[in-house]
């Protein structure tokens, strides 16, 4: 790591304190943070859950292509009655359909949830990358150049944050989805997915930019930046080689907070009618459709809802642990 790591190296870790004898081994801040994270049982469980979901997210489209899971085949023989409700108990659970089938269409719910996880995580990750990218670049510029650049970026942030975000997410949909289709993205869901990623990413960057800017403002006064300047380092070198490595901690922590909110946002957009539409499954549109059967077919209502909840919870728990590990000041002041 860089020599500029003092930010979170100050506090020794109780769990990793060496025995009294033996030389004290030097550890980089990253090693310290990793050790802290490992010692946090809840965060580790959450991490395993996240890995589990990521594996599902990657595997689902492959399984779909191989025909192991099937999200689209209609099973009219498995639904019956006036509401076309699934036959059998608990929403038609059977060996072939471990979570039952959808009312009306009879599509396999388990497969649809798996593929829904793929889309939801892909959207959330892509939107987070956009938010981080924009936020880091603009935050760096604002914090380092200050003056006019800082002022204009600051006003732009104020402007974006003044918009009612959720309302804008859905209000912009008719305008922008069409524009995206015009640029050559296939009509329908591909355009909608592009729109959701773009708009979530765009409304998220101001928060990143603010945090990065504040960090840069304090870092640029530090001796190691001064030293680099004295040695004649170029601006770009100072920005990317000296400052950026010190910004990874806040970037990671904040990404872990933002990512699950993007998963929920996808669901909220589906609920409000501007999300991705079936037959492409997302946790949001499954939940949105299942709302109509909340009392008649609780399995159908609870399965996507609880999946969504567990995904978001895992990210939140891990994010908490990450914050404790990387930023010793937060949450652990006092007590210990």
């Amino acid at each position, binding site marked *: 790591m860089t020599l500029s790591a003092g930010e979170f190296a100050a506090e020794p870790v109780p769990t990793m304190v060496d025995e009294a004898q033996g030389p004290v081994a030097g550890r980089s801040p990253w090693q310290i943070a990793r050790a802290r994270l490992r010692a946090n049982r809840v965060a580790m469980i959450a991490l395993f859950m996240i890995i589990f979901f990521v594996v599902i997210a990657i595997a689902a489209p492959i399984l779909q292509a191989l025909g192991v899971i099937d999200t689209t085949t209609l099973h009219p023989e498995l639904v019956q009655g006036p509401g076309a409700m699934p036959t059998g108990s608990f929403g038609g659970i059977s060996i072939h359909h471990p979570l039952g089938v959808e009312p009306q269409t009879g599509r396999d719910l388990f497969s649809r949830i798996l593929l829904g996880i793929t889309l939801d995580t892909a959207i959330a990750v892509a939107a987070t990358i956009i938010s981080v990218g924009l936020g880091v670049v603009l935050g760096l510029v604002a914090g380092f150049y200050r003056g006019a650049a800082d002022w204009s970026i600051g006003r732009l942030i*104020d*402007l974006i*944050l*003044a*918009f*009612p975000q*959720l*309302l*804008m997410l*859905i*209000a*912009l*949909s*008719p*305008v922008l989805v*069409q524009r995206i289709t015009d640029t050559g993205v296939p009509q329908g869901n591909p355009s909608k997915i592009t729109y959701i990623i773009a708009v979530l990413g765009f409304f998220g960057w101001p928060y990143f930019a603010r945090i990065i800017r504040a960090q840069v403002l304090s870092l640029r006064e530090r001796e190691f930046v001064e030293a680099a300047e004295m040695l004649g380092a170029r601006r770009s070198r100072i920005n990317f080689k000296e400052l950026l490595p010190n910004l990874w901690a806040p970037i990671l922590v904040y990404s872990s907070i933002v990512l*699950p909110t993007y998963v*929920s946002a996808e*669901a*909220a957009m589906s*609920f*409000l*009618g*501007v999300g991705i539409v079936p037959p492409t499954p997302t946790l949001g549109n499954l*939940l949105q459709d299942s*709302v109509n059967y*909340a*009392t008649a077919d609780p399995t159908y*209502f609870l399965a996507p*809802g609880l999946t*969504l*909840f567990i995904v*978001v*919870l895992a990210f*939140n*728990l891990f994010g*908490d642990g990450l914050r404790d590990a990387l930023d010793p000041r*937060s*949450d*652990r*002041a*006092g*007590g210990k």
Partner: protein
Amino acid sequence: MFQYVVKRVLSIIGMLILISVSVFALFFAVPADPARLTCGKNCTPAIIEANRHALGYDKPIVVQYFDFMKGLVSERDFPDDPVIAKNSPQSITHCPAPCLGYSATQGQLVSTMIKQAFPITASIAVGAFVLWLVGGIGIGVLSALKRGSILERGLVGASLVAYSLPTFFIGLLLLDIVSIKYGLAPPAGYTPFVDDPVAWAKGMILPWITLAMVFAALYVRLTRANMLETLSEDYIRTARAKGVPEWAVIVRHAMRAALTPIVTIAGLDLGGVLAGAAITETVFNLNGIGKTGVYAIQQLDLPVIVAVVLLSAFVIVLFNFLVDLLYAFLDPRVTL
């Protein structure tokens, strides 16, 4: 102080003008034709053209924008056409200032719709605000005082669970399971407070709980972190050492300092909810600002979309300002 207020008010006005310009530019670039939406099934191109002209949609966007802005301070007529005014004055809708426009789709003045919607949103916001503030801070303080206990873990865990549940999932669970299936809570609905305060509260209880659950979680975490930090301050030790009773140490010394930063977030959140709780209102079918906006977006009812977004932005910006003022009063270290 006075100078600060004047400066801020000017910058707010500038901000709102910027927002209104961008909203107009965005929404009037919508692919849908607002004039087409003014008449139902028996539509002929001639009627569409007549309506387009009568409602001013044939004018350039810039002119439409200034017409809208003029309407905020002076009255307007819809349709604004001397020929119609002469031949059939009864078909003219008069819009007194501040005029927010006319929804041809719904045949109503936008200001009338907003006037009907706002009390509903305000009722939801105020009750939920009280609930989440009291609940969130109470649980937060309690968990800080009981640090390390099972109670603390349970409370913090529960708040994280509530935080991870999507808003509409909580709302639907409450609505479908608690209210409809088991009849444990009265169904949601709006009765004006002045008509019957009891019925008002009864109809609002589920939306209040829904919103409060989502927000309270954040306050639990913030309050807890701030309390822990404050309790480790030297002045708390001093207070204890000089024999101040423990409750006074906690309430007067610790809570006062720990809760001041929360005022900022509480104010911003209240502003956000007052700008329209789209999801909660949609779940419980309450025609507040948020649902009015969502419905208008689904119908591509441009005048309503523009008005709702602008109004929401105004509320958000206003609350930003109020929070800064309030903070200066509460925290003696802040000077404006």
